[in-house]
């Protein structure tokens, strides 16, 4: 132990770097980064798929090269997912949803190159900060992690969900409804505490709960694609900057906001170290942090403020470093992908635990260096390409939209490789699009979805183990106090400015068809509430609380709205602040919007039907061809080329490389001999 201080550590870190920097190891690190970048580009697949592809090769490799490759892949696939997020509003992975908010707006202004370059510069710095924090903290991290018990983890997740009040913008009650809706959705499935199956409708698909990817793609990707189809034009008319100038501007942006990067990266690294807090919420939590602390952010965020891109991007990359702490020091993986990294490590003969921080410290530093170098390689490559990628945003929508639709469809299917994923995508696509159109904030839904069950689980363990005493632990009291402040301060500001009277509506009564959204949410919550009452206490307490809160918040909001006097000469003043979500920016008549949206979702239904009848892969070119011809009379040659290209791509990646059990089609039932010939029939 004595050599683990001062120079000893530096020396070890230096040795580790030298041993990594041999050509045969760096090549594999590079290769891992390239695979990670390519997978990150595709919505719905990411680190998990990458491990499935690469791990089998590592069994016979040199351990350092093997782990460098795996870490390179793992840390770089959260970088390239930014590209579809910024350019099309389709998050390539769970970690880039928050980036969509300001990134897509910048693209629409013609500043896609600037946004991407700012994202990559801050990704790089964030990744390096994450690796640095980890490198410094590692030798002494075990006592720190051991002092954090389940009650502290519980308090930290509560802090995360308190961000809902910030992420709801000027519609706090709607945000509350969305968050509770997310919590309820997240609670579908087998309850760990009791074995009770909650709202599974006797479907095997729902037993493990809804897979997160189809939900995310539905709530965030489909609405953007749908609005692209409704707008019927390219994302942007002209690029604001020349390629080089845009890139340079992005770099300057990142360095001008160095303090923001420092803060967000530190938060990201700490959040990454908490098992279960995935990057799907890390990006929103730091986005909320930036929104609260940055000057003028409450007016400009969501309208294409570059800080809204910088904050989540650096934090997500920093969190990859944090995630390695529990993995290396205790063998606790942060999620499914981490679990596979862990088993690959053990196959290579590395035993997570105290040895990684003493006897094997050099190996551990090799991993830290791998992470740092992967960030440099990955970010540099993306950065170089960012100006070129930005040009895609000027293409006609019919050239890119159908292919992206096909990829989201296949990506959603990776959720649990079952028909249910496709329905989930479509249902949440409709919910997400309606929410976006009618100005319901969507970020709280994701926060609730990920954190709700985590809070329920940690709360159960804490009370089971410590009774009510867990509340008196000093760390818990501190974090809970901070959560209360984060949660209540927006409300406090309103009350201080306007008095309690400011909260009351004073207008005449009116009803609009858009109020039906309330009926939908409240109705679902009421049904779930009633269903839950037949369950065991521990299985129903969480749902009862969430559904009850939803109904109360929804009802208050609805009543306020009904009496707000909207449309009259003297409407009640709207609350101040920003709308915490993207806005639909077309001014088409409602009838046209509805017709074109129906067309858009119609294509998805065509996709579903095609998959059922002739198989998923044969449907891909049919749908793309159909879309391009029917929507815009694109030339046959071009349409066929794109359709076949997309099919070939999907076939190679998903059928040949990944190996996916496709849903069986009717055609295959009728003519079984086709099964061996045409994939996915």
């Amino acid at each position, binding site marked *: 132990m004595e050599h683990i201080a001062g120079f000893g550590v530096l020396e070890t870190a230096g040795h580790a770097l030298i041993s990594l920097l041999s050509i045969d190891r760096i090549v594999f690190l590079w290769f891992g980064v390239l695979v990670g970048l390519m997978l990150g580009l595709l919505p719905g697949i990411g680190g*998990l798929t990458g*491990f*499935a592809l690469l*791990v*089998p090769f590592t*069994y016979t490799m040199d351990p350092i090269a093997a782990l460098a490759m795996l870490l390179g892949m793992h840390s770089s696939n959260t970088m390239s997912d930014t590209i579809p997020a910024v350019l099309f509003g389709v998050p390539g992975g769970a970690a880039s949803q928050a980036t969509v908010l300001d990134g897509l707006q910048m693209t629409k202004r013609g500043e896609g190159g600037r946004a991407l370059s700012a994202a990559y510069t801050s990704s790089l710095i964030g990744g390096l900060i994450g690796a640095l924090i980890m490198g410094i903290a590692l030798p002494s991290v075990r006592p720190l*992690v*051991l*002092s*954090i*018990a*389940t009650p502290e983890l519980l308090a930290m997740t509560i802090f995360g969900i308190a961000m809902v009040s910030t992420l709801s913008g000027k519609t706090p009650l709607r945000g509350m409804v969305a968050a509770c809706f997310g919590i309820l959705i997240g609670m579908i499935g*087998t*309850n*760990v*505490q*009791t*074995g*009770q199956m909650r709202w599974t409708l*006797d479907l*095997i*698909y729902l*037993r*493990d709960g809804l897979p997160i990817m189809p939900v995310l793609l539905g709530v965030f990707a489909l609405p953007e694609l749908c609005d692209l189809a409704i707008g019927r034009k390219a994302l942007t008319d002209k690029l604001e900057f020349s390629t080089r100038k845009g890139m340079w501007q992005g770099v300057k942006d990142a360095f001008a906001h160095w303090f923001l990067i420092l803060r967000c990266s530190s938060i990201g690294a700490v959040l990454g170290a908490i*098992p*279960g807090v995935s990057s799907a919420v890390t990006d929103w939590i730091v986005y909320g942090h930036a929104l609260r602390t940055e000057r003028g952010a409450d007016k400009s965020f969501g309208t294409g403020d570059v800080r809204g891109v910088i904050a989540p991007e650096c934090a997500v990359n920093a969190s990859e470093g944090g995630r390695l702490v529990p993995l290396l020091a*205790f*063998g*606790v*993986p942060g999620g*499914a992908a981490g*679990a*596979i990294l*862990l*088993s*690959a490590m*053990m*196959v290579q*003969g590395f*035993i*997570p*635990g105290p*040895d990684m921080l003493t006897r094997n410290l050099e190996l551990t530093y090799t991993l830290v260096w791998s992470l740092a170098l992967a960030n440099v390689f990955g970010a540099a490559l993306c950065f170089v390409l960012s100006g070129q990628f930005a040009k895609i945003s000027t293409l006609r929508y019919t050239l890119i939209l159908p292919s992206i639709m096909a990829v989201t469809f296949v990506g959603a299917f990776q959720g*649990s*490789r*079952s028909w249910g994923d496709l329905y989930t995508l479509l249902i949440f696509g409709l919910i997400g699009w309606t929410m976006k159109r009618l100005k319901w904030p969507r970020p709280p839904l994701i926060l609730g979805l990920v954190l709700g069950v985590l809070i329920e689980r940690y709360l*159960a*363990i804490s009370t*089971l*183990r410590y009774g009510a005493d867990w509340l008196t632990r000093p760390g818990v009291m501190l974090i809970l106090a901070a959560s209360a402040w984060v949660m209540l301060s927006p409300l406090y500001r309103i009350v201080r400015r306007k008095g309690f009277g400011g909260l009351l509506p004073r207008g005449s009564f009116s009803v609009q068809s858009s109020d039906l959204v309330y009926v939908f949410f409240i109705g679902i919550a009421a049904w779930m509430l009633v269903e839950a009452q037949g369950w*065991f*206490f521990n*299985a129903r307490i969480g749902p009862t609380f969430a559904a009850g809160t939803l109904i109360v918040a929804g009802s208050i909001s609805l009543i306020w709205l009904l009496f707000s006097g909207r449309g009259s000469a003297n409407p009640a003043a709207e609350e101040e602040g920003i709308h915490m979500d993207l806005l639909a920016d077309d001014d088409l008549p409602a009838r046209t919007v509805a017709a074109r949206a129906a067309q858009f979702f119609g294509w998805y239904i065509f996709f579903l039907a095609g998959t059922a009848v002739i198989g998923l892969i044969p449907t891909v070119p049919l749908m793309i061809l159909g879309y391009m011809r029917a929507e815009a009379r694109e030339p046959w040659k071009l349409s066929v080329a794109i359709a076949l290209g997309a099919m070939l791509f999907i076939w190679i990646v998903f059928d040949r490389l990944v*190996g*996916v*059990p496709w849903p*069986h089609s009717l055609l295959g039932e009728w003519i*079984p001999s086709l*099964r*061996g010939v045409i994939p996915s029939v």
Partner: protein
Amino acid sequence: MKLFKNKALLGAVTATAMLAMSWLAPAPARADAVEDFYKGKSVTFLVSAPAGSLTDFVARNFAEHFKSHMAGHPNVVVLNLPGAGGMMAAAQLQLKEVKDGTVIGFLQRNNLYVPLVEGPKSGFDPRELQWLGSLEKVAYAMVAMNNSEVKTTADLFSKPLILGATGYSNENRTLPAMLNDMIGTKFKIIHGYDARGEVYLAMERGEVDGWASTVAGLTIPDTKQMLDQGRLKVLLHLGFESPAPFDKVPNLSSYLKTPEDKELYSFFTRSMVAGRPIGVPKGVPADRLAALRKAFDESAADPDFLSAMKAKDYPVEAVNGAAVEQVVKDLYATSDATMLKVRAIMTAKEPK
């Protein structure tokens, strides 16, 4: 009359005759038919665990050996369909996959008894599958950190031991909970941890003192290290034998005595014989099934496969298809009275 010149020839003829009888048809014709069928075909291994996991590693390794032992040497493709504790893959295999012997399921042991507990809504019935065998036997043992109050097996009955556990219906909660009722152990069980990693972390920070681990889990490097260093100790086998390498540790045979308790407890341990069951849907022709079973038996005994698994500390303890079928049969013969008690143990009670 001396029909056979020597014993070896007699043995060979007898074996052929028995093989032929087992296929209920003249052997030579059928053998060709099976070989012809599989030649050039692709056989799918539907694995109920995610790609890259330990189970997947075992399945892919096994697939390689299976290919060389199977008649016709078909190509083998591994597809992963994780979810619902293996139930996704099990139901897919029973209801949707072709029944011609080209799809083989790598399932999990809870698939053998959970449908019996839940009834038809589970969406799967293990009696609707034909089993090729199982690659692993499972056994549980109680382990505790050395800094806990409980130092010996006898202490389990006098001092409380706080246990970590995962899900409510998981064996790592149900087995110790039953022992509290049956033999008077004093476990306080905290369930809800995500997986073994979280439980061990809770053990290290003193949140819990121990847990019911699988014996195979004790050979995983980080846990083995804790045992070697004396930071963790094995106190009691939760079965009626004391398997190696902890054969000095007492087991339940000296504690669990009444027939009713034994029957109830055995319901949970019965499926452990077939810890990693492998099957095909009913309807696969008998000759192909026989060939698949033979290939399973040979692959599971293949020295190359065994040494590859040993190198990864994965203990292969194979049983054949008939043994798995017997496990299913025994489970489904459980008395209604016992089933009532089983359901009570696997579902939560209202708090007092």
